[in-house]
């Protein structure tokens, strides 16, 4: 990673499609923290998240031929693979909905992130977590990181089904406003 080589996204994609292992190493070095972060948030378990991360990168490597640059950015494609793989694992481990609620509902999430994973981004994350209301944070995380449906979110948060999308919209707008200030 020390080498000052950088690739544009299209160079990276071409290299990966040509099955160049150097490009794969570069891809891993640049994107594994973000994808590992997703797996960790979904699964809340470092060992499981590590296994899932390997699965995610193998799917990327084996499936790169199916990636179509016209359909979106490489990162978006990889994030989708990561999210879906992690959520599938979460479900196959027969995590119940109640467990998801317990994980997200408890207020330990924020302090845990701060205490255990201090990173360069942590100031930004602190700000996000401070400025989002607890309900806004939970509704985003339930949908994005736990793969909950509107129906499930309505039950977990005890709100009318018809208001889930409106509340999600407000939460995302608030999140984006915060991100602009960072």
């Amino acid at each position, binding site marked *: 990673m020390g080498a000052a080589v950088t690739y544009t996204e299209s160079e990276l994609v071409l290299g990966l499609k040509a099955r160049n292992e150097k490009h794969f190493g570069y891809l891993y070095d640049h994107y594994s923290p973000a994808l590992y972060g997703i797996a*960790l948030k979904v699964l809340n378990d470092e060992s499981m998240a590590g296994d899932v991360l390997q699965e995610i990168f193998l799917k990327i490597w*084996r499936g790169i031929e199916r990636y179509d640059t016209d359909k979106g950015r490489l990162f978006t494609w990889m994030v989708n693979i990561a999210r879906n793989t992690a959520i599938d694992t979460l479900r196959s481990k027969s995590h119940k909905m109640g467990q998801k609620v317990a994980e997200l509902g408890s207020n330990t999430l924020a302090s845990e992130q701060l205490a255990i994973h201090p990173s360069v981004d942590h100031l930004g994350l602190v700000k996000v977590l401070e400025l989002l209301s607890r309900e806004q944070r939970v509704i985003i995380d339930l949908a994005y990181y736990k793969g909950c*449906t509107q129906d499930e979110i309505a039950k977990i948060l005890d709100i009318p089904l018809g208001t889930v999308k409106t509340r999600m919209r407000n939460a995302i707008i608030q999140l984006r406003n915060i991100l602009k200030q960072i």
Partner: protein
Amino acid sequence: MDASRFISSGLIEAYVSGLATSNEIEELERAMAQYPEVRAAVNDCQLDMEQYIILQAKPAPAFIRQNLLQTIADEETARENGTYVETSEFPEETKQTVYVNSAWRWAAAAAILLLLGSVAMNYIFFGQINDYKGRYEALLSAQNTLASESNLYRARMEQMEHTINIFKDPSMKAVRMPGTKPFPTALATVYWNQQSKEVFLMANNLPAPAANKQYQLWAIVDGKPVDMGVLETTNTTELLHKMKSIENAEMFAITLEKKGGSPAPTLDQMYVAGKAS
């Protein structure tokens, strides 16, 4: 819905957060293709969501990188050797994940197992049915053979019974006709019913005639030969051949004649002869 309504509908936020249903995803993707401003709004929102994701990034343990590079290097070696087996893993590209109740997933797994089981059983039973069909047909043909043989034997039995009844008749007289000098081993017997005057011939030992020849039986009445008919050789299973009836005869004799018989016997072709009284 026009572009601005899409942008304010909340659909974009639902899509980006993974909350949208598959119908909503389709609807939005159609709008993205139709309105560049909708596509731009989705992209902006997605970039911000990704920034939120990146905020939560964390370096993964170092051994994972080593494992992965080793795995893909092994895969590439296998691919070059032609021993690589393509895995059926597809990167999931659907953003919407439909949560399926675990009971349904168990039911689906059970249904798949049942289906696989059923396919296997079908395969096995189909093989068995073919096997049984083959055996059934073999049995059927064996049964037909047996039935026809049985009919044949029954017919022969009836014939034999009929023959025996003829022999058993108390008024039946047997006239033995030994071979003449040129044909010493030849032998035939006439059975002559003294009441009904019926005459039957048994060929005990007569050489097979040429295709254009037939044996003819003669009765000698008052020193003159009387035609008693030719010996039909087509029905070889019959023991007794019914000949013409006659009231009186001093002798019986058999000559070999042209097919169909002759009006007068060819004397040098007399095979057997025997006195009737």
